[in-house]
């Protein structure tokens, strides 16, 4: 449109927003003037004083209604309504503090419970596993006869058979968790160790923080006394020293060599694990026959 009408339009709009009290007073005066003039005209037409005023008010559909319709054409009407609604809400809440308290507590509990539940669901169900190609990872359990829904740990011979006969997965790794004591220092400490097959590293796409991971050769009994420690253990007991790589530590009084450190983000199979050692068994207990039916 043309710019010149904004010379008049902008100040008029500005007034309704900024000088709202003045504008309200003007509105009141304008409509009162109208009613007074109409009343006067009605009187001159011979109406009674009461009728004259009543007819005048009715002709503008009621003073308050007319005011409301005039307010409706103002810009930012919604913002002014929002403001007065909020002020009204605060006043009402202040007038009944018990109700307010109960309402706030109800909301707090409701929101708190929902948030807690969602956090749990997010952690357990929604968050993807923190490994590359997480959608290709699967966890395998054994079941028992008569217990189709039970999840049992699998026997080592079963694992070996699955791995050689597997056509569905790129690779299958195995692990178990057991407690160990860190000894040979002035302060022994109970540790959680995960005994893993060496292919776990490549399956999970793991990267060390320091040093290296062990290879499949370390699964041979006798070559198995190597450990990869967690960043937590490395900082806590090995002074975060890069020189700790290649140095010995004692687990259950047996000497092991530290070959690597995993970053704190690597938490397999849980955040409580302090170190990873090869999954290795003495030759005498090797038994390649499958012990459980699958």
């Amino acid at each position, binding site marked *: 449109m043309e710019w010149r009408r904004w010379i*008049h339009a902008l100040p008029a709009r500005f007034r309704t927003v900024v000088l709202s009290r003045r504008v309200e007073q003007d509105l009141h005066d304008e409509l009162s003037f109208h009613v007074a003039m109409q009343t006067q005209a009605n009187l001159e037409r011979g109406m009674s004083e009461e009728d004259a005023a009543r007819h005048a008010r009715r002709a503008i559909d009621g003073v308050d209604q007319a005011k409301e319709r005039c307010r409706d054409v103002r810009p930012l009407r919604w913002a002014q309504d929002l403001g007065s609604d909020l002020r009204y809400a605060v006043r009402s809440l202040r007038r009944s503090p018990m109700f307010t308290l109960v309402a706030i507590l109800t909301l707090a509990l409701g929101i708190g419970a929902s948030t807690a539940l969602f956090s749990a669901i997010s952690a357990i169900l929604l968050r993807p596993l923190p490994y590359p190609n997480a959608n290709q990872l699967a966890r395998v359990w054994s079941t028992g006869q008569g217990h189709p829904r039970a999840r049992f740990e699998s026997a080592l011979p079963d694992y070996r058979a699955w791995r050689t006969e597997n056509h569905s997965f790129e690779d299958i790794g195995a692990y178990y968790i057991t407690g160990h004591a860190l000894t040979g220092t002035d302060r022994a400490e109970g540790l959680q160790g995960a005994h893993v097959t060496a292919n776990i590293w490549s399956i999970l796409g793991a990267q060390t923080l320091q040093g290296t991971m062990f290879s499949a050769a370390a699964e041979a009994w006798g070559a198995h006394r190597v450990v990869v420690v967690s960043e937590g253990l490395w900082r806590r007991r090995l002074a975060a020293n890069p020189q700790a790589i290649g140095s010995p530590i004692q687990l259950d009084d047996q000497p092991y060599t530290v070959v690597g450190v995993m970053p704190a983000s690597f938490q397999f199979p849980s955040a409580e694990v302090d170190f990873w050692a090869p999954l290795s068994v003495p030759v005498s207990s090797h038994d390649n026959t499958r012990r459980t039916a699958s």
Partner: protein
Amino acid sequence: MSKPPDLVQGTLDLLLLKILAVSAQHGWSISQRLKQVSGDELQVSDGSLYPALHKLELAGWITAEWKTSVLGRRAKYYSLTRAGRRRLTQETEEWQRLSSAIGRVLQMKEG
């Protein structure tokens, strides 16, 4: 009291602009003028008058000024702005085109 039929959308604006083009005046006298000139044929309720005036004012077609009326009371006098005058010309042409078009249709011979 039966409600008068609603004016065609936007027609009230045109009538108000025209009335103010004749002379600047306050709301009540605008309403009187409307009734007088249209011979009570166009019944604009006084309740619709003020929102319409305020809308025209906010649009910049008309402007308002508080002055003392003949009776010694403060009254809000509306007058046409230059933009409003141009708007009136446009709207009038528009209206005449529309009504003559409708007129031509209604003058068709039947049968």
